[in-house]
């Protein structure tokens, strides 16, 4: 009861006209920033910090503005995934897998609205999780030692097969490319630069946003250039939009997927260093393993849109747990929010809940407000967003290219990243030609580094004893899940292969 009273107090703090206005602005800007490739939640929040300072906003209003942008960007990322097959930010990558095929089938409206609802469910549950469980959840973060983190990342890679392509070998190949790219940069365990060729821009490794925008957005542009004499324009005009609101039946069907996705995403978010991308990946791959009986995943199954969207939005809420309770940012965006809190003279950490209840509960109330506002904004706006599909590709594609260049230049302000992005664009185009899926490449770039560092930390702490990797019950459980997840498709491969042959023709739809 005490908690509800505090939450009520939080709403008192948060519910003023000014704050509601800020939340509305934040939600709107966040959605746009999330949808634009290259501008993700962390840039979005960072861009608005000076605005919050210049307006002289206090702690709570600033946080309301910035968390609205954060949640808004998590919502917005799905839009370009579904409509253009270009993830707006890295966690929205998994939404491409079924969202884009749905749009191709003329169900863009349904895909957008179902993913909007899934985003809402994920964020809503995560906010409750934050309220009810934050102090207990910190203990989960303390359970994970380097060896357990390594097992968790290994699990992600071992269950990769079949998630993004029918061909496991191609998935594995793509993941290896990603892992190899992750090796670039200064190795923190020795302080030695690897594969940097004396180029200082490479010392921090390859920015995954540069990789994503290059691989997805630019390669899309290249594919368009290649086919521009064909029927690309005509296709754009014929594209059907579908219904703006999802059929009730679809909502019912996808509800369990949303719930499972939310739980998995939230837990991944709570672990510092795992974050939203792992959350949406685990939500998708689990869902595929659990319910994909007819092999419809990857071909426009609404459940394949609902699960990762619920997952990444829940992870966004989950990532606030270690940020607030431990002062450890679980993602780029929470790192920025942490900096904002610090500059507002608020120190997140074990005592935050006791020392600054106003700020914490105001923030939580803000999350609820932003979430409802986003649902209200996003469902009616589905109609507007889907118009993008009516724009002829010859106009749309140059815009995509322009946004990519501006977005990436905006991150680091260096032309070097633009060159890297173009290279990734060419690589992406080549990989598409060979039907190699792009998602595992990004997963490798994203998770390769933490996976390697945790392996090395674990072995270094144990003085070179490799058995440390299977010493805790947690890592044993994770390894068992990983091995089962890896072997299942091989053992049942025959059935799968037969199924694949049936739908072999459509395979291109995903990577094309």
């Amino acid at each position, binding site marked *: 009861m005490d908690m509800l009273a505090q939450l009520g107090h939080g709403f008192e703090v948060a519910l003023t006209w000014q704050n509601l206005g800020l939340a509305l602005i934040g939600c709107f800007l966040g959605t746009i920033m999330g949808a634009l490739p290259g501008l993700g939640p*962390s*840039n979005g*929040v*960072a861009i608005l*910090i*000076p605005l919050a*300072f*210049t307006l002289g906003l206090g702690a709570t209003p600033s946080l309301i503005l910035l968390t609205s942008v954060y949640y808004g960007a998590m919502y917005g990322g799905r839009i370009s995934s579904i409509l253009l097959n270009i993830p707006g930010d890295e966690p929205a990558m998994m939404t491409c897998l079924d969202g884009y095929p749905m749009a191709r089938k003329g169900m863009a409206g349904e895909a957008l609205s179902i993913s909007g609802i899934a985003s809402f469910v994920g964020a809503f549950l995560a906010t409750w999780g934050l309220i009810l469980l934050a102090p207990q959840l910190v203990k989960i*973060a*303390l*359970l*994970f*030692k*380097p060896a357990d983190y390594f097992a968790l990342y290994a699990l992600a890679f071992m269950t990769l097969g079949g998630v993004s392509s029918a061909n496991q070998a191609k998935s594995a190949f793509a993941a290896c490319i990603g892992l190899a790219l992750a090796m670039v940069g*200064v*190795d*923190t*365990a*020795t*302080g030695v630069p690897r594969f940097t060729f*004396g180029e*200082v*821009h*490479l*010392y*921090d490794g390859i920015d995954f946003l540069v990789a994503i925008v290059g691989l997805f957005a630019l390669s899309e542009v290249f594919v368009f250039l290649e086919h521009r004499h064909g029927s690309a324009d005509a296709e754009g005009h014929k594209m059907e939009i579908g219904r703006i609101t999802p059929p009730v039946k679809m909502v019912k069907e996808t509800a369990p997927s949303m719930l499972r996705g939310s739980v998995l995403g939230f837990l991944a978010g709570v672990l*510092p*260093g795992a974050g939203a991308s792992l959350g949406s990946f685990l939500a998708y791959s689990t869902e595929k393993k659990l319910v994909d009986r007819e092999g419809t995943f990857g071909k426009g199954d609404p459940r394949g849109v609902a699960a990762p969207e619920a997952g990444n939005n829940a992870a966004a809420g989950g990532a606030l747990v*270690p940020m607030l309770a*431990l*002062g*450890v*940012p679980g993602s*780029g965006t929470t*790192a*920025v929010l*942490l*900096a904002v809190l*610090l*500059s507002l*003279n608020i*120190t*997140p*950490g*074990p*005592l*935050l809940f006791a020392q600054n209840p106003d700020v914490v509960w105001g923030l939580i109330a803000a999350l609820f407000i932003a979430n409802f506002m986003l649902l209200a904004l996003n469902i009616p706006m589905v109609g507007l967003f889907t118009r993008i599909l009516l724009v002829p590709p010859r106009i749309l594609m140059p815009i995509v290219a322009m946004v990519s260049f501006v977005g990436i230049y905006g*991150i*680091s*302000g*260096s032309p070097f990243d633009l060159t890297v992005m173009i290279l990734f664009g060419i690589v992406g185009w080549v990989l598409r030609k060979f039907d190699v899926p792009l998602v595992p490449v990004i997963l490798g770039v994203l998770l390769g580094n*933490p996976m390697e*560092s945790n392996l090395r*930390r674990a072995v*270094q*702490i144990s*003085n070179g004893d490799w058995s440390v990797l299977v010493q805790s019950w947690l890592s044993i459980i994770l390894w068992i899940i990983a091995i089962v997840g890896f072997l299942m498709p091989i053992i049942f491969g025959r059935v799968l292969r037969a199924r694949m042959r049936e739908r072999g023709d459509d395979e291109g739809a995903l990577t094309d």
Partner: protein
Amino acid sequence: MFLKAPRLALAAAALAITGFAAPAIAADYTPSNPECIAPAAPGGGWDFTCRQVGKTMQDLGLIKQTMQVTNLAGGGGGVAYAEVVNKRDSDNDLIVAASSATATRLAQGAYPGNDMSQVRWLASIGADYGVIAVAKNSPYKDLKSLLDEVKKDPSKISFGGGSAVGGWDHLKVLIAAKADGIKDVRKVKYIAFNGGGEAITQLLAGSLQAFTGDLSETKGFIKSGDVRVLAVLAPKRLEGEFANLPTAKEQGIDAIGANWRGFYAPGKMSDAAYDFWTKEIAATYASPEWKKVMEANGLAPLDLQGADFQKFVKESVAQIQGISKEIGIIK
């Protein structure tokens, strides 16, 4: 010029408060587009330095416009350093956030082709002293007993910190170990994490026996009682709420490790502009507003400007070079 009057008055007032004798001379230079480069992504210490100093300067009226903060991430600050040296060498409106990490990388030649003499070092705005801490249930009660254990069996004590091997958090432990008479400091086991928070989490999770980091990132955990600080690497006890933390020096281990924060400017900045910036940063430092920021962020005093700061950076680069050679990071 009349527009500057209130600003100068404020600066003079601020200077007067701390007892500076320097008279407020009207500078013949004012930046038209003050810009601060944070050589890292938003959210880190450099970003904080730019934004907080920029905000305070504007609040005090020391600069008329908003300080534009540019995040130029990459190469642990190397990208920004190269950009300033190569392309903006005579930009009078530009200052760049720096810290011990900058000095460490310059000392170790981690900015290829660049060294500390290529820029002008402006001023410091405070220091974050190093701490060596253990979890609250650890058997080690003081720094001596922890380092004695390291002497006996270095493989038993894993130190964790937020910087890479050879980075500042690592070097702090080695400075302390060396001061305690550990000869082969290469044996000290150091595990690198992506930030102090992650390392503290692993300290609490029981993976590590000790933590090395800055006071500011440890603050919340000291207050909550989750960690016990064995030593602050400061010349004397800190003031205020951290006065009860023992220094390494009083335990007979003469080790000082301060993560200073400050600024450098392009190498060909005009003397007038250089004087303007050192003076205004000094005025910011002296203001009561900045004292509050320092207190809230666990920054301790370190008040160096102009030539003094230049000398200080030079000395710390030399010290870091010495210890880096010893552990084999550089030849």
